[in-house]
């Protein structure tokens, strides 16, 4: 049974400056500042006890005054899963840090989110349009796309 890892187990292992990045953590979802997102995910992947080696899904949701990026991670070895969220304020040229260097699976998903939602990921090897074509005006999945 893939148990949803209780968050307390993760927060107990965090060291000091990562702990500052956590905004709040309850019932297997960790809300983290977008700045320290990348360190948290590489921490989750590399610590022996947690070793989340499988990135299930990256989603982005447009809540009008902020965008939310939802990372779903699974650990194939210990058979548990966790959700990491981060919030990006603002409407124009929003940037988040890309995690392609940690998970190769994030490559296509980040390009798709860039195409449809307008969130650019720095550090992504080729941020070309994936689903739509060059010269497509607007980001369709945003709530204010007419």
């Amino acid at each position: 049974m893939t148990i949803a890892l209780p968050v307390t187990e993760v927060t107990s292992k965090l060291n000091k400056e990562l702990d500052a990045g956590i905004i709040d953590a309850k019932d297997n979802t960790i809300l983290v500042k977008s700045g320290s997102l990348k360190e948290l995910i590489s921490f989750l992947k590399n610590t022996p006890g947690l070793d989340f080696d499988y990135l299930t899904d990256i989603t982005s949701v447009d809540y009008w005054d902020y965008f939310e990026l939802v990372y779903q991670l699974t650990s194939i070895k210990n058979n548990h899963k966790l959700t990491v969220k981060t919030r990006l304020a603002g409407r124009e040229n929003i940037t988040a840090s890309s995690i392609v260097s940690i998970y190769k699976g994030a490559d296509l998903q980040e390009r798709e989110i860039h195409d449809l939602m307008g969130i650019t990921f720095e550090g992504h090897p080729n941020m070309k349009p994936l689903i739509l074509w060059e010269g497509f005006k607007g980001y369709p999945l945003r709530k204010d796309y007419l």
Partner: protein
Amino acid sequence: MTLHTESFILNIGPSHPSTHGVFRMKATLEGEVLMDLEPVFGYLHRGIEKLCEERTYIGIFPLTDRLDYIASMSNNMAFAMSAEKLAGIKVPERAEYIRVIMAELQRIASHLVSVGSFLNDCGAFMTPFLYCLREREKILDLFDMVSGQRLTYNYVRIGGVNADLPDEFLPALNFFIEQMPLYVDEYDRLLKENEILLARTKGVGILPREMAINASTAGPVLRGSGVKWDLRKNDPYSVYDRFEFNVPTGENGDTYDRYRVRIEEIRESVKILKQAAAQIPAGPVMAPGLPRLIRLPIGEGYGSIEGPKGELGFYIVSDGSIAPYRCRIRAPSFLNLTALREMTIGWKIADAIITFGSIDICMGEVDR
């Protein structure tokens, strides 16, 4: 005597017989050897996630039918389950069993299509493909009996199933359950030690175990690389914990292993069908007291099932209205393609086409 040779860019383009739909690969070739391969998506991007936001929950089921149009039943089941998980709706026993039967039948039909078209790419032109489609027609008759449709069934609802099984369904299912292993043995006699198939697919397009996990592939592609990860076993949803079946995995993650995993999975699905057909209880097929226009409580939920091509998940964010605020589809075919470039570089064109065929994508799901 150095000979100056140039590489050229070839479009294995949108309308190509062996790209299983409108998928394009910009291949940089040096003679016959593949130097670089850039997949191009989007030729079938219908914006289903945007359309989901403007439809009621019951109106989204026809959209999920057309996601992975070779496995519509499992798409419906995935969406229904993630909505039920979010709303905490309890599905009656009989509906759970019907859903498992339909999902396993759909897995066999989808694997038959993928094995048939994979062998079609290997050069066994049309013979195994027509064998597999002959069996698939039998499954389509069963689906036709239940939902009246051949390809897009719109049969599962949130909280249960649309209609109960007709009485002649179970005898027909039992007849199919006895027949199917004989057909699979027929394929094995034809193909298991076929030296052309072995020569063409053994050791070709290898996806190592770490790369498979890191590139978040799922389903037969992941199991072909030796990772024993099947949601029906690791995270049993619905009533899968009552059935006894095992999860076939490959050893070295080459094209032959992925093909073998799919053939073995057809046999496992027949085993599950036999047990499910035996244990199916009587009772209602729809959860009582659900309004026609379901309003899911405010919140978000991610439910996923083991579809024929991998883990198919729906991330639904609901704001209490009749339509979802956001409905993200975690499509297995889309993520299985992340490692396509690493698997095909350095091989010849013919091997690249086979490796791509063994990943078995369905364009409706890749581009959503």
